[in-house]
């Protein structure tokens, strides 16, 4: 086990040093009031640079990452992250800008934001975007505040948001945060929405319905146009959760399906590394009639000069400081430029082919509640395994032993013992075949040696961890 920083700390050691002072050093005790000063020094570790480097490098090796392992994590779109994107985002002329520099000195950066917005409009079929939201969930929250502001401007009191059980977990949480009441809607057994059931919950106080398309079972909502008609007839808005956009690039557009508001998880579809949990970016796009409500500022262009427009009196306000997670936005723009129209279409086609290919093999071994076709991901149920006392969790842990990061498990909640696989377009056929063979081998093991699965993983830096103990007696720092 790698020791903690505190445990490798040695009195008097340090990795960094401050330059020698070229101005008179002021004793804080002499120029600031004593009551403002720290009495107890923070317990920061004392470590040499070499040891610090080794500590973090060793820790990095205790990680599965896209660069080391196949990561078929459903709903997370873990595709290959081109290093060129990193390189570009770190160009000095992009990484070392102050947000409050004058617009004259930020023309290149503003051009990137302006063009990215235009490209996202084209890809999704929307009319305007705000690049400010820092993550998908913040995008959802922003989108719902836009819905609220829109109905307020029309003096309509609409307090409810419909969220199907096939939607992402953040949807209801975001709606609650925006002050809405949530109406849960049950999907059919194959995860699809039934327009008749949507109509039943469409009361005149519904502000919007939040849909994930393809849904969390990896299935396209085939009756989307009927749903759209009913929702709009009710005066409600259509919200699109764009976390699964990787299935539709260049093939279909949420805007064409009648969606009014959407967010796009740039870090997923547009391939900017996930960084162990972020930063990401969740730009929000809207149809023209909602554009005035987007967060300020927006980037505009007037006679070849880009500028930040703060004159947005109907705006919901600001959801994040400055202009969003700029480096993530740069990487997404680089990815779009590298791919081009044809490349983007190829991305979705191959993502869907790869997912269906895996489903065609694994769907013969485990029940697939949504049938034998999927979009970019699919969900299997490990329920049959439970006959031997093996759970989906055990299957996932055994995959770690074979060098695979486990797929998403127990999500969506509507499938018993769910296991959700998203291979993405960047895996080769050989990699998929190997994964499928391993998966099948583990299913065999589940029958012949269930204990092996329950005792897995064994090849990882630690074996199964006691999560109950962690929650019951929380140790949250050294």
């Amino acid at each position, binding site marked *: 086990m790698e020791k*903690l*920083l505190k445990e490798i700390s040695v009195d*008097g050691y*340090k990795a960094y040093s401050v330059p020698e002072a070229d101005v008179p050093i002021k004793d*804080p005790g002499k120029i*600031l*009031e004593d009551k403002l000063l*720290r009495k107890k020094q*923070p317990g*920061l*570790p004392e470590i040499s*640079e070499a040891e610090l480097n080794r500590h973090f490098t060793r820790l*990095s090796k*205790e*990680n599965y990452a896209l660069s080391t392992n196949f990561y078929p994590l459903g709903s*997370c779109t873990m595709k290959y992250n081109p290093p*060129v994107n990193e390189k570009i985002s770190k160009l000095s002329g992009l990484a070392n800008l102050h*947000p409050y520099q004058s617009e004259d000195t930020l*023309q*290149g950066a503003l*051009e*990137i934001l302006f063009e990215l917005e235009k490209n996202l409009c084209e890809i999704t079929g929307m009319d305007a975007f705000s690049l400010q939201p*820092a*993550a998908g*969930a913040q995008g959802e929250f922003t989108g719902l505040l836009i819905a609220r502001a829109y109905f307020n401007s029309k003096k309509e009191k609409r307090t409810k948001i419909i969220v199907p059980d096939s939607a992402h977990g953040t949807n*209801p949480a975001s*709606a609650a945060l925006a002050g809405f009441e*949530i109406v849960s809607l049950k999907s059919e057994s194959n995860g699809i929405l039934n327009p008749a059931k949507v109509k039943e919950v469409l009361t005149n106080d519904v502000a919007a319905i939040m849909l994930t398309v393809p849904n969390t079972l990896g299935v396209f909502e085939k009756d*989307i*146009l009927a749903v759209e008609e009913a929702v709009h007839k009710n005066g409600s808005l259509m919200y699109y959760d764009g976390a699964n956009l990787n299935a539709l690039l*260049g093939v*279909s557009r949420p805007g064409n399906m009648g969606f009014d508001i959407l967010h796009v998880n740039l870090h997923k579809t547009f391939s900017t590394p996930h*960084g*162990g949990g972020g*930063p990401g970016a969740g730009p929000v796009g809207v149809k023209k009639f909602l554009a005035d409500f987007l967060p300020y500022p927006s980037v505009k262009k007037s006679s070849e000069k880009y500028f930040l427009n703060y004159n947005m009196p109907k705006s919901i306000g*600001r959801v*994040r*400081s*400055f202009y*969003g997670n*700029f480096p993530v*936005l740069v990487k997404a723009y680089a990815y779009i*430029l590298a791919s081009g*129209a*044809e490349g983007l*279409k*190829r991305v979705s086609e191959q993502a869907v082919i790869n997912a269906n*290919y895996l489903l065609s093999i694994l769907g013969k071994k485990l029940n697939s509640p949504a049938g034998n076709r999927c979009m970019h991901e699919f969900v299997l149920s490990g329920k049959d395994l439970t006959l031997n006392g093996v759970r989906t969790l055990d299957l996932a842990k055994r995959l*770690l032993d074979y060098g695979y990061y486990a797929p998403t498990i127990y999500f969506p909640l509507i499938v018993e013992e769910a296991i959700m696989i998203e291979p993405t377009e*960047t895996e080769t*056929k050989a990699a998929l075949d190997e994964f499928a063979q391993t998966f099948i081998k583990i299913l065999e093991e589940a029958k012949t040696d269930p204990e092996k699965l329950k005792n897995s993983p064994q090849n*990882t*830096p*630690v*074996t*199964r961890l006691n999560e109950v103990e962690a*929650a019951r007696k*929380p140790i*949250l*720092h050294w």
Partner: protein
Amino acid sequence: MDYISINDQEKKEMFSSIGVSKAEDLFSVIPEKAKVKGLNLPKGLSEQELVSKFEILAGKNISLKQMKSFRGAGIYEHFIPSLVDEITGRSEFLTAYTPYQAEASQGTLQTIFEYQSLITQLTGLDVANASMYDGASALAEAALVSIRSTGKKKLLVSSALHPEYFQVLKTYLQGLAIDIKTIPLDGGNTSTKDLKNLFDPDTASVIIQSPNFFGQIEDLEEIKKLCEPAGFLLISVVNPISLGILKSPGEAGSDICVGEGQVLGNPSGMGGFTFGFMSCKQSLAWKMPGRIVGQTTDTKGRRGFVLTLQSREQHIRREKATSNICTNSALNALAGCVYLSGWGPEGFKKLSTLNLSKSRYAFEEIIKIKGFSAAFSNHNFFNEFVIKTTKDVNKLQSKLLDEKILGPLELEKFFPEFKNCLLFCVTEARTKKDIDKLVDILKEC
């Protein structure tokens, strides 16, 4: 170019396994009306073309490497030790996801645990989360915690809070019926007299930034005492670099502390390399939003780390979740972790003192110049300060820019009442030579 590898033979085999003859068959379920006939975007670029396009775009900006910056106001230029980029650039950290499978993610989980530990040490509070988007949204989330945990509906917010933080706070609360009152200023500090008058038993929290937007250090302890014993929370917004010398929020009686982590090893990045840190008292741990990592043991009794207290989160409680945070800013927080690990307490204090000394030197030199004077009588500031000038500010700024200096922020941009007031920032990144040059140019203006 794209990043896909597949040949025709493989594609044929895959189609045959699936039972279709072409890719379009897989999209047949999508109604025609929802389809699109090709995107109106240019052709893809090769890597070489891509890099040169971005080099041209980057060249249209003037970066802080081409100027000497005296501008802060929320984003600061500090020296970044090389080790920080070395570690955050490691693809094993960069290309990993949120650590859902703990056994395969010990690297990320332990670094978050180390990060949480460092933040609690620095802020003097009991618990920290795994980071949030930025300082502003972390503050808004902290305000929500205060509302939920006290059941009260009023917030008192210092007028010396960063204006963009205030804007984000207002946006976050617009769906809820919350009364937000601002506490007026007394000079460059929060008016304690006005605070006392505004305070009532329905106050959920008092929000104070220190050093505040004007660079002035607030007396958090005094503020906490003024309003006691009422059951409200003191939320402080702090600059972590200042905590090498300033009283920790915990010592001063804060219940929740938040702030912007960019200063800890992240470049300015047009305000995009941010992470919000948040720490709080133990009693609020279950109310804290975002991810938290906890220590536990594996089946062999060895130490390991997992995401914990998850029953607060959106994937379990859906609409009853404590927040909707899913993606955060783990990689930027990792930079913060590597940065904070290398100084040792003495080195960190020195760094903090150097910031204080350099800004003090610049301040003393600038107020000697005719037409420039201290805006406030209280000179308790850290690395930013406000100067009032009788000079033509536009001319002054363009003259500085001509000399490759990013001048101070004009406060009027956010505070109309502070016309002709300039917010200067001086960190350890500025040398005496830089400061002297700034002073010389100001003299000529």
